[in-house]
């Protein structure tokens, strides 16, 4: 069943490219790739890795007050752009996606406890998604029901999808969707242990060797109706090949792409461009490329945004939705920096220079641990 499209009424963004959507799109157009070295001490040999962090504010990447300081600012950017009145805000539903929520703050509190009482057991007294609900109520006046998604790297993409469906059946008039991923020790040490990290992000390149992590906060306000940027929905499915990667034969991804096109009553040639998930990990790029080849006879222009802002994990759904939306509004599809050597096993070649972005429908892919695959559509209209 085709769900009615909803309008993207406002966007907000903070990532390594900058604070505020306009700044981020300007840096994207300039081709900036602002990964910086990050060092974690205290785990035997220090862990040194490149990381796409927010522009330096002098407080360091593990500042426990970051969530409270930055999230309302980015939510407000989207809410102000949408022009919601205080009454409308009170009735607005909140959909959030993250892998770590407020874990940075919990880590900080636990480390303080360990200084006072060495050997203590972990005393998690906070639940991150509950904190976000309360923060949005206090700072932005959002009092509608809340839904916190934790489907790994598809979390905020699924939050967007759920919001679109709820709006399309008239459950709410407006929805605020947030994606949040801030630097924290759990994620950085966890990915180090998984040995999935690389020095440089090169999606679909023959020399790709893994991901580079990043932090980001994205926000969107959706409402019923249509405008210059619309969200017709998408689809989500499960792949039980492996808990940490999609099936590299592309079968589950091809099934997903077929579902999302069928739900929107679109043929593959109606897609004007694709934002790949493009993690640059060998297996995931193989699965995504294979899935795209099975779906599209002639592949539309293919871009990937992670070389500009890192893999922002649970936030990447909304962060990349907002950044792509901003680029489309400016009329361009960004190139994929770092790509220079085609992998004959993948058989896909992403954009190596920015391309014009005509009106029409764009496909956005997201895949996550736990076999969670999600694809969204974004429609640019005259």
């Amino acid at each position: 069943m085709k769900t009615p499209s909803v309008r993207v009424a406002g966007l907000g963004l903070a990532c390594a490219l900058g604070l505020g959507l306009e700044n981020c799109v300007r840096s994207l157009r300039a081709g900036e790739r602002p990964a910086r070295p990050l060092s974690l001490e205290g785990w035997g040999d220090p862990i040194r890795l490149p990381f796409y962090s927010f522009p330096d504010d002098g407080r360091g990447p593990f500042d426990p007050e970051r969530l409270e300081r930055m999230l309302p600012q980015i939510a407000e950017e989207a809410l102000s752009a949408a022009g919601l009145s205080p009454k409308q805000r009170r009735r607005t539903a909140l959909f959030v996606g993250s892998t770590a929520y407020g874990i940075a703050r919990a880590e900080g509190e636990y480390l303080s406890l360990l200084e006072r009482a060495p050997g203590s057991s972990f005393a998690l007294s906070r639940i991150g998604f509950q904190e976000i609900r309360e923060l949005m109520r206090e700072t932005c006046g959002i009092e509608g029901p809340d839904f916190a998604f934790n489907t790994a790297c598809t979390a905020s993409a699924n939050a967007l999808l759920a919001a679109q469906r709820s709006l399309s059946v008239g459950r709410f008039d407006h929805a605020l969707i947030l994606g949040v991923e801030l630097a924290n020790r759990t994620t950085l040490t966890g990915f180090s242990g998984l040995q999935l990290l690389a020095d440089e992000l090169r999606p679909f390149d023959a020399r790709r060797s893994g991901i580079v992590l990043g932090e980001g906060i994205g926000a969107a306000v959706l409402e019923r109706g249509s405008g210059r940027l619309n969200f017709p929905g998408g689809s989500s499915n499960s792949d039980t090949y492996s808990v940490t990667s999609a099936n590299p034969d592309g079968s589950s991804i091809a099934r997903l792409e077929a579902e999302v096109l069928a739900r929107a009553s679109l043929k593959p040639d109606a897609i004007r461009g694709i934002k790949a998930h493009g993690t640059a990990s060998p297996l995931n790029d193989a699965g995504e490329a294979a899935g795209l080849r099975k779906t599209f006879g002639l592949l539309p222009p293919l871009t990937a945004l992670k070389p500009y802002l890192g893999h922002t994990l649970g936030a990447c759904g909304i962060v990349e939705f907002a950044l792509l939306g901003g680029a489309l509004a400016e009329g361009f599809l960004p190139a994929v920096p770092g790509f220079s050597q085609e992998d004959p096993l993948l058989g896909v070649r992403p954009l190596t220079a920015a391309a014009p972005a005509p009106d029409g429908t764009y496909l956005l892919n997201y895949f996550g641990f736990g076999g969670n695959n999600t694809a969204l559509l974004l429609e640019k209209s005259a």
Partner: protein
Amino acid sequence: MKARLLASSHRIDGIGLAPAPSLDEALHQACREQHRRIDRFIQLALLGAARCAGGRPLDPSTALYLGSGVGPAGNNIIVQEQICRDKVLPRPFNFVNTLGSSATFFVAKELGLEGQGWWVARRGATFEALLELALTDLELGIAPAALVGVAEECPQPVADQRRRLGVKAETPLAEGSHWLLLEKGGGPESLEAEFELQGEALLAALALRWRPEDAVAFGPSVPPELRAELARGRQEFTPAFPGEHDSAAAAFVTDFLENKGDGRLHLVAGLAPNHALISVTPKI
């Protein structure tokens, strides 16, 4: 929003000072596969989901909605202690299992599901949030059926967990797994729910659905005055649970269905002031 109720499963265990009971044998009985590298939280989810499916083959497109108020707490504690206290890298399966989607992965694998698999939480009202999304998707025809469940783990020692939850020292705690299998439509066995009901709208909705043989129940966040007003002249369903966990609404519904009470149950739940009214009609 209304759905046909195909099956349910209910499990709740009081957790005392002794180690929590092993779930290995129960899992062996309920599951087709022997799953490796899973923690207790995933075991709870698997057990409830497999029992709800009851060995019947599910349509692979069935959508899965799993959530929890406190999530994989035991595993999260292990990971934090590895990183912050012991200064070692977390073990890969511990790290991956901090994500809710690990549990959905194993449930999907066990039941052969290929459709949407979502993990969603709302502290104090996770079941209500899951139901709202599942019923919306059924209404839209996103999936032919919806498997909706919550799992709540209580890591040991219980005294530490009470401190984390901010409850009194004598509060009995429980862990549980509560599941429903739904499909679009109504019928003799059904679930009907309305959400974000306030004040007069809630009173009116309950009055409209009420029949003399029915029972009413209340989630923990319903204010006492409202509860008294809604309970007046009505039979109240109050199951005896061995302890508390964060998904009381789910426990009420699946307990009622398991014990096949007379008439229907109308559960007033959700977070004040936005309440949910969930009505279930079991097989009589």
